């Protein structure tokens, strides 16, 4: 079973989707139940990964599977090449963990075309899991594009007022980025063929990473990859699709988008862009760190000014992912592990925040902050949960957000990005401002709007949705080593390789200069 665990996990949702397609349209509850069961089964399938201690000791890919998929004579070989290491481990588990929660949140929220929604959700899960486990760039690209379609329809069919604009914008932004990446992928492949990488390895990332690509080529290739991933992260200034998409998407869509899809961008940097083009990474680091810091501060400032809770959370994502990017480009263990952990944290906290916004919206059909106020009186349980999530999003010690941001800031401070760290730290303060201010206006004070007086507190189902997220908020906050221990070996290995290549590149450059000087002296 272990041999094909990853494939089973990835394609089980697809099987579920096919089953869903054969259920009658009217059987609303049945469709939801089947989908929930499928996602839970996927989670159970993925659980052994979480308890596998091999990740603590080994940085190598585990659970690998390899099969020849497409081969065209002496030209192409695309392989079904998947595996998992400490970097992708927690993201895979985050995906399988969030999906049942997202499905459960649709119980009352989605009532038209349930069948379509659930089928798309399952297709999306396959796409996301596939993208996280791909070790072949071509395969990765397929899954990467596969994710676009379901999300496009989710926003466009089940979204809010302005859904068409948001859906089309989401699709076009992401697709434009990925098309340029496709050209870069093809180019890297031909380079590898000319560099003598055995043809059977196809588009294998591990083999590409061992090549020495000349610096000037790396610059262009990295730019193409980085642009594609930057749109997905999203980084300032290509973030503009995110607030639209988040605001218009249905709750489950927002949760999946925030918790998992955004991680594709940052994951792409860690898994592909940086290891493949280490020298270019060095050149781009200050620039990307600058954009990350601008994103942190800009996202926070814009979030502060929002009068729509969902938009506020959307902009806070821009800010949070700026932190992740800063940590990743610090290129040391603290920064990278902090960045990786913060990806998980953001998935949990922001996912939870979108669920909370969804609860509010289902009750009042509005998301404007001014329409609320004093809710803690009528919804005490909700108030407690909302507060914990708010603290986690701010990064209060004891919650998960603190560990991630702390590691990122320490890592960045110890790297050459020290100056940026100073500015990034203001983001933590700003986060406290916009989150607490929002919490205060929504939950505290007197009930000003009579419609709010009779709101029901959370139902058992809603509490059940939130509970797992709360557990992880504290678990990561109090004992992060459960998670860090398993990601560290893979990260250490990656840092070692990248730094090594950067070091050689710098030495070569120095030697060139010396040679030039000697020639001049002669």
């Amino acid at each position, binding site marked *: 079973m272990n041999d094909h665990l990853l494939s089973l996990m990835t394609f089980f949702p697809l099987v579920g989707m096919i089953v869903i397609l054969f259920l009658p349209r009217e059987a609303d509850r049945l469709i939801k139940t089947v989908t929930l069961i499928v996602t839970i089964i996927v989670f159970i399938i993925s659980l052994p990964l979480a308890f596998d201690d091999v990740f603590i000791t080994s940085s190598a890919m585990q659970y690998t599977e390899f099969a020849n*998929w*497409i*081969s065209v004579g002496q*030209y192409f070989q695309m392989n079904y090449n998947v595996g998992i290491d400490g970097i992708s481990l927690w993201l895979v588990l985050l995906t399988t963990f969030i999906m049942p929660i997202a499905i459960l949140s649709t119980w009352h929220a989605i009532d038209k075309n349930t069948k379509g929604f659930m089928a798309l959700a399952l297709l999306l899960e396959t796409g996301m899991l596939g993208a996280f486990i791909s070790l072949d760039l071509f395969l990765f690209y397929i899954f990467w*594009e596969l994710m676009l*379609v379901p999300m*496009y329809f989710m926003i466009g069919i089940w979204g809010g007022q302005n859904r068409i604009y948001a*859906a089309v914008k989401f699709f076009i932004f992401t*697709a434009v980025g990925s098309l*340029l990446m496709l050209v870069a992928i093809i180019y890297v492949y031909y380079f590898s063929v000319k560099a003598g990488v055995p043809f059977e390895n196809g588009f294998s990332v591990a083999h590409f990473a061992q090549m020495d690509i000349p610096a000037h080529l790396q610059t262009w290739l990295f730019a193409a990859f980085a642009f594609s991933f930057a749109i997905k992260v999203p980084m300032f200034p290509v973030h503009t699709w995110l607030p639209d998409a988040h605001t218009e998407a249905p709750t489950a869509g927002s949760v999946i988008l925030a918790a998992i899809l955004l991680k594709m961008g940052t994951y792409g940097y860690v898994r592909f862009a940086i290891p493949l083009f280490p020298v270019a990474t060095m050149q781009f680091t200050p620039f990307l760190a600058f954009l990350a810091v601008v994103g942190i501060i800009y996202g926070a400032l814009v979030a502060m000014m929002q009068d729509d809770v969902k938009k506020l959370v959307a902009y806070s994502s821009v800010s949070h992912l700026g932190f992740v990017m800063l940590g990743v480009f610090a290129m040391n263990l603290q920064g990278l592990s902090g960045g990786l952990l913060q990806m998980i944290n953001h998935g949990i906290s922001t996912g939870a925040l979108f669920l909370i916004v969804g609860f509010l919206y289902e009750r009042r059909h509005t998301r404007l902050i001014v329409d609320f106020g004093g809710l803690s009186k009528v919804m005490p349980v909700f108030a407690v949960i909302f507060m914990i999530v708010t603290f986690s999003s701010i990064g209060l010690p004891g919650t998960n957000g603190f560990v991630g941001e702390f590691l990122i800031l320490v890592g960045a401070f110890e790297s050459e990005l020290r100056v940026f760290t100073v500015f990034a730290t203001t983001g933590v303060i700003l986060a406290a401002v916009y989150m607490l201010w929002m919490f205060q206006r929504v939950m505290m004070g007197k009930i000003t709007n009579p419609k709010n007086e009779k709101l029901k507190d959370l139902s058992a189902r809603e509490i059940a949705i939130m509970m797992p997220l709360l557990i992880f908020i504290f678990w990561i906050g109090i004992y992060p080593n459960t998670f860090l221990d398993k990601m560290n070996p893979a990260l250490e290995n990656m840092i070692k390789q990248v730094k090594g290549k950067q070091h050689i590149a710098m030495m070569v450059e120095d030697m060139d200069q010396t040679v030039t000087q000697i020639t001049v002296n002669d």
Partner: protein
Amino acid sequence: MENLVQIALQNVNMAAILPSVILTCFGMGLLLISVFLPRGTTRHAVWISMIGLLVTGLFVYTGWGNPQYGFNDAVANDNYAAFFSMIFLFAAGLTILMSDDYLHREGYPVSEYYPLILFATAGAMWMASGTDMMTIFLGLEVMSISLYVLAGFFRGQVRSNEAGLKYFLLGAFSTGFLLYGMALIYGVTGSTKLTEIGIYLNAHASLLDNPMTLAGLVLLSIGFLFKIAVAPFHMWTPDVYEGAPTPIAAFMSAGPKAAAFAAFLRIMEYCFFSLKPEWTAMLWVLAVLTMVIGNVIAISQTNIKRMLAYSSIAHAGYALVGMVAANEIGYSGLLFYMLAYTFMNIGAFAVLTLAGKKGEDNLTLEGFSGFGFKRPYLGVAMTIFLFSLMGLPPSAGFSGKFFIFAGAVDAGYIWLAIIGVLNSAVSLYYYLRVMVYMYFRDPVEDYAWVTLPAAAVISIVIAILGVLYLGVIPGDVMELAKLAIF
């Protein structure tokens, strides 16, 4: 005289033309049978022509890997011709399947329609197998004349008449260019045989910058580029596709376009390999122009048939990229793409034939509002075809574009590949918009439940299977395409 006949007969090799002869016989037979049947019966014509296509396909299939040359090297039934013949046969088959109920709905249940498609297909096959300027020209004329009639087939409809007449006038004009080009090349080299022309030009380097050679090359190219609908020779396409009966528009966008590519590529590769840098440079510019014009104008279209016409211009541009690359992967990518395009575009048109009402005034974006929910199966089919046209994996359109752009990158045309993918990004917008109307808008018209005609459904199902097969496991067909090129 007797000697001449003997020499001519020595070189006859019927095996070289067997498939197209069989197809022509079926067409002729069908015409004859139809005379004895009452007007308005067409069912037999569908059956007979489908059988004809199947039998021809069988002969093409058995001829694979066993090239036959005949008629004093005027015809070569090689793998190249076989691959393209398969494309034409698929295009004709899918078109015929979707036609019957359509013709009845539009009020023209005339059985002559089917032999004309068979003749056009046979003409296309001659074009693909011609290795002499004259055979290629004959094939082109047989194909074109059938298509002129088919485009204007709805003789009571103004739009159809306009389409037929426009296609005929411009087509005749472009044929003039083609013939003039052939004449000039004959004047330079003294031969109409493609290989002989190539050898002669290669041996006489001084002829390569001779104005007559270059003028011949350019005029020849114009003739084919017109048929392929490459900008700036694309002007006829939108009007003709919009006015012609929908299945014919589908057929023209796939079969004859591929036929023109087949002949064009063979001539360029056989005759003008010594001038490769020149013609690739020319096609580079035209490819960019075609992709940009096709995609940008498609954005502003509200009639879906017209939008697909502009999109077919853009797709011709992508295919040209493969020709510019001028390497093995680019050429075989082009062949692959033509097959992929046949499935996805004819599939999309087949959905249109079922979605339209009599007169087809509802084939606008507005008319498609809510289509996806009211006609769920057709909606899903259309979605698959549109995603394939966009070039999203795992679909035929994606693998096709991937191979073509890979060819371009391999040949060092990285900018061309980048312009190509950026153009696909532009195309996302107008393909997505169809889906926006299909799924994100509420229906404006009444959708009465209709039973879908079985034949058209079969055509759509085949197209979907083709799109998915070429998308998920493109390796096998790509291998064949590689064996098919020279």
